[in-house]
């Protein structure tokens, strides 16, 4: 049954993919989004169906399928975010009508979603890598969609992926194959079974290549540089999938490979956790500076990914621990990480959709130029606010619960480094809050200016898309049990007992519902006790000056937190230094290449060109080694003028020789 549902959704994706045959732009978009929506729905149905009886094994088109708790968590992410995003896409893509190529979109968009579904369901290493590549490929096509500033971002993204994600994966795959020895025997479990026979060096290599591959895809520092440009220049519905779903695939891969192929070791766990801490600090502090709405969100994706890795890292470190309490804390950390991945998919997805709506309505994503949108697009405003509160980890929103679990896990690990990490996570969430105060207020606060005054609320489908995700943020925030029911599957029950009222694990208890009731009661009580009586309106107090430029009477996004950033400028300087270092390395490599390349090209013909970069070399004539050896002879013969005869001669000799041999 479950497999049928999976096949159903996949085939719906396929239908969506080929809906490009309809040719007419709008209808193609509508059709493919419709199919994607249905497919996502059937995914959700699948989740409900599969929930009771895991794991489920099967096969589709020769690729072995295995759906267990872990897959289910990520299927949920794909299903829910995919649903919202597909609905959102109905109208959103009209923005790009003049670009045409709707069929490409249909193809890439559905392929993207389908590939991710297969990634989390396949149990075969080679197919995993295969779909992984398809995912990268289709996402690249979608990233470079608007063909302007996105081009470079997309290329950067794709090349980085190929270098840092594909290569290691291929290597790992090869190593895996080398122990298994047959294509069909590449199932996760089979590889795991044979891993023992590897030499320790190769095992280390295996760990390293998996880690590198998933770091790159997750945008973990120092491999995060591709993420902000790519996410911010892609169409918003694509950014949602990238940031909400795709980078989660890295988390899936990390957990899957670590627990199902390799063995979770302590050092590896520490590595992951520390990478997480560094990432959450760097990503979020950089996000604080951004004034481009989507860039800001993208940097937060980096930061939040740090939280997830911290949780997972704690899990990897402690889950195998002999001390049962610590092992338990490990399980908690892992759960927290996965739960946060789920939550991040929700609020970040919603935020990107809102950013898209803002751009759709006002034509810009530059926060400096936005103002007073709340008046004109209240729904988008509300949704954006909920999602912002969610990501800032404000109580009663989903972000809080998972972050709280991460803190608890880090703290109760009784390990100074994890405690420190948890503390940093806590402090950084204040920074997150700050930067979303900026995001929300500079877009929605104040009064509309001449740019935004023309904006109006976006079409219904886009609102539904945002609404689904951002309301889920609130619901899960109050009733975490809903999401935790799924998030706890991988580590099995008993780690966290969740009820409608709250969640508890060994003596730790928190009840969002109770919190909500307390807060709500007080709030309503005061509202009833002292209802606001503010009938009379007035324009904001400008000290009674005449002819005042009202539009400029507010803080611009680029002005927020200047003193604070100045305070920590040393940090940014450090970041800049590493950035320069990276680009320097690349430049040196190219220079070195050009230097060598000079010997492969005759640049004498190029007049007045000093060879600086590769492009100059291209105009020269390529030299060949064998030419250098043989051409003199040939020229000599040519000078003698009997080349053609020589050729004939050569043939004759050969034939003669053969005949001679025959007569022998």
């Amino acid at each position, binding site marked *: 049954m479950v497999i049928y549902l999976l096949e159903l959704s996949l085939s719906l994706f396929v239908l969506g993919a080929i809906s490009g045959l309809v040719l007419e732009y709008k209808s193609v978009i509508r059709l493919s989004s419709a199919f994607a929506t249905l497919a996502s729905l059937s995914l959700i149905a699948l989740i409900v169906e599969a929930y009771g009886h895991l794991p489920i094994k099967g096969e589709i088109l020769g690729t072995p399928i295995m759906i267990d708790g872990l897959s289910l968590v990520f299927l949920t992410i794909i299903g829910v975010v995919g649903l919202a995003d597909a609905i959102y896409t109905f109208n959103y893509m009209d923005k790009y009508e003049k670009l045409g190529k709707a069929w490409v979109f249909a193809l890439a968009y559905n392929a993207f979603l389908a590939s991710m579904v297969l990634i989390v369901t396949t149990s075969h290493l080679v197919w995993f890598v295969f779909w992984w*590549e398809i995912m990268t490929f289709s996402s690249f096509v979608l990233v470079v969609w608007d063909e302007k500033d996105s*081009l470079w971002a997309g290329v950067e993204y794709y090349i980085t992926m190929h270098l840092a994600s594909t290569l290691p994966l291929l290597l790992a795959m090869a190593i895996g*194959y080398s122990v298994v020895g047959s294509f069909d025997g590449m199932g996760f479990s089979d590889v795991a079974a044979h891993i023992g026979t590897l030499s320790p060096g190769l095992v280390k290599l295996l760990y390293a290549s998996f880690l590198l591959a998933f770091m790159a895809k997750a945008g973990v520092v120092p491999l995060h540089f591709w993420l902000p440009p790519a996410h911010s220049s892609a169409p918003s519905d694509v950014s949602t999938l990238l940031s909400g779903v795709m980078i989660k695939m890295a988390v899936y891969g990390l957990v899957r490979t670590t627990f199902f192929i390799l063995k979770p070791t302590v050092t590896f766990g520490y590595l992951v956790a520390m990478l997480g801490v560094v990432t959450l600090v760097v990503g979020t502090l950089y996000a604080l500076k951004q004034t481009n709405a989507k860039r800001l969100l993208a940097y937060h994706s980096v930061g939040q990914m740090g939280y997830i890795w911290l949780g997972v890292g704690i899990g990897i470190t402690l889950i195998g621990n002999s001390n049962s309490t610590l092992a338990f804390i490990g399980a908690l950390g892992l759960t927290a990480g996965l739960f946060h991945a789920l939550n991040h998919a929700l609020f970040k997805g919603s935020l990107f959709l809102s950013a898209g709506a803002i751009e759709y309505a006002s034509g810009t994503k530059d926060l400096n130029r936005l103002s007073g949108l709340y008046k004109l697009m209240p729904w988008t405003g509300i949704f954006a606010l909920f999602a912002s509160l969610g990501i800032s980890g404000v109580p009663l929103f989903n972000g809080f619960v998972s972050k709280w679990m991460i803190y608890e896990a880090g703290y109760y690990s009784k390990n100074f480094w994890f405690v420190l990490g948890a503390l940093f996570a806590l402090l950084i969430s204040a920074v997150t809050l700050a930067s979303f105060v900026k995001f929300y207020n500079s877009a929605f606060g104040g009064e509309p200016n001449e740019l935004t005054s023309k904006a109006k609320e976006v079409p219904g489908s886009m609102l539904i898309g945002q609404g689904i995700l951002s309301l889920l943020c609130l619901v899960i925030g109050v009733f975490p049990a809903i999401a935790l029911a799924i998030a706890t599957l991988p580590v099995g029950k008993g780690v966290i007992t969740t009820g409608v009222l709250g969640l508890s694990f060994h003596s730790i208890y928190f009840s969002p519902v109770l919190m909500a009731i307390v807060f709500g009661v007080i709030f309503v009580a005061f509202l009833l006790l002292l209802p606001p009586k503010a009938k009379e309106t007035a324009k904001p107090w400008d000290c009674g000056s005449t002819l005042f430029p009202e539009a400029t009477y507010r803080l611009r996004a680029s002005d927020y937190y200047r003193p604070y950033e100045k305070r920590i400028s040393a940090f940014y300087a450090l970041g800049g230094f590493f950035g320069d270092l990276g680009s320097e390395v690349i430049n040196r490599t190219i220079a070195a*290449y050009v230097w060598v390349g000079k010997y492969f090209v005759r640049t004498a013909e190029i007049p007045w060109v000093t060879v600086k970069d590769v492009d100059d070399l291209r105009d020269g004539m390529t030299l060949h*080694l064998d030419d250098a050896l043989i051409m003199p002879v040939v020229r000599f013969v040519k000078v003698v003028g009997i080349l053609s005869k020589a050729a004939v001669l050569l043939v004759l000799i050969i034939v003669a020789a053969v005949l001679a041999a025959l007569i022998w």
Partner: protein
Amino acid sequence: MNSTIFLLSFLIPLALGLIEFKLDKKKADIVMLISALSSLALTSYGLAVFLGNRGIYHLVYIHSQGLGEVFGFVVDTMSVLMAFIVSLTALLILLYAIDYMSPTNKLNPVESGKGTFYGWMLILEGAVLGFLFSSSLLSFLVFAEVIAIATWGVIRYYKTPNARQAANKAFGFINLSMLFGLLLVVVFGLVKYHDTSLYALGQLSSKATLWVFLGVMLTAITMSSQFPLYSWLPDSTEAPVPASAFIHSIGAVEAGLFMMVRIVQFMNGIPKTAYYVIALLVVITQVMSIFYYPLQKDAKRLLAYSTIAQVGIMYVALLGAILGSAGGLQASVYQLFNHSLVKSLAFLVAGTFGFSFGTFDMKKIKGLRWILPGAAVGWFLALLGLAGVPPMGLFLSKANVIMTGTMAVRGASWIEWIPVLLVLVDATIFFMVAVLWMKSMLFGEPSYEKGKISPLMYAVLIVLIVVMTVSPFLTLHLTESIRFIGG
């Protein structure tokens, strides 16, 4: 196992090819179509029959006391599949050629003389098909010579000085290599054992094995343009695009490798020295091509270097085979199949540039997706395909090569890892170059007004894309039946 099918499948093109020289225009087209179609029909029928009852059939037609097995067939998965793919690709290429070799071609319009072109092409096809089935080094030699001549013919077709030089170069190099390689081996074989049959290779003493191997290898790597004598291939892009497509995807280049595979298949106990020699040459080739990619601005030359590297990868797989893993053979052949399809697509797309803009200079071409959408998609897929991105077949075959390679060298000294890892490096470099070129070529402000290519050409491209995407999954398991034969 009735082998006349295969006999006809290459005799028809050879015969009709000779007739073509007298024809031109429509007539030529028709004759060409007849021969190409018939050979495809025959090979596919043969394939069907073969799949019905698999096995390795060895048929001897001419056998003499002095010369042992002069002419015979080895019909096995490898040759049959290969033959099918060759004839299929050949047909597609020739169909493409019908409209390409026309007065509307911007770069070099063709008023007359189609006949000669078809003639050479058909002979080439026939020779290759014959080559595939050959069961003795002697017939390998003969067919190789024919291939060399036909190659010479198609390359010099435009008769420009460059074309002539390139043609002579190709011809000269191949023959040179044969003079000191295959020819010597054959002569040696005839003189010493009075037999050049592949089946005889199994019984050679290890010393003899080494020398025979090296001799054949010299010719093989020259035909498939590996290190010492490689530069004829880039120059051969002077040929008409369909010709280049043929040469690069299923011509001399692949023939060379094929021969090599056969040798490895039939020999046993190949000494390590041979391994090191070929490994060295392959590594050098790989490194060179890595350096050559970024220097090219001419679409066809870029593809040429990629061919060198791709064939190199096939040799890397073969290295695994030499170390004794059958997986190596499979990987090598599998790579061969996928490459021939992707590469022919790449060349045919590149051809449309010349056809509708009159240039192959990738610097000059901008905004391709606006002015020639079909070609844009084709180019996008072809380049990424060559770089080994799924769903295009080369991903699977490269993965295959690496996996088998790793398995072969696992636990060996680090030196033997080098060729395997180089495959990854090479793929990456080509990938970067490809992506950067696509960025500049496909998008942005168009540099030419809208170009147009005929529906037939479009059709060919689409068919190729489909085949290229589907075939890897079909052939994957077929190739697994390739095994060592000799001994």
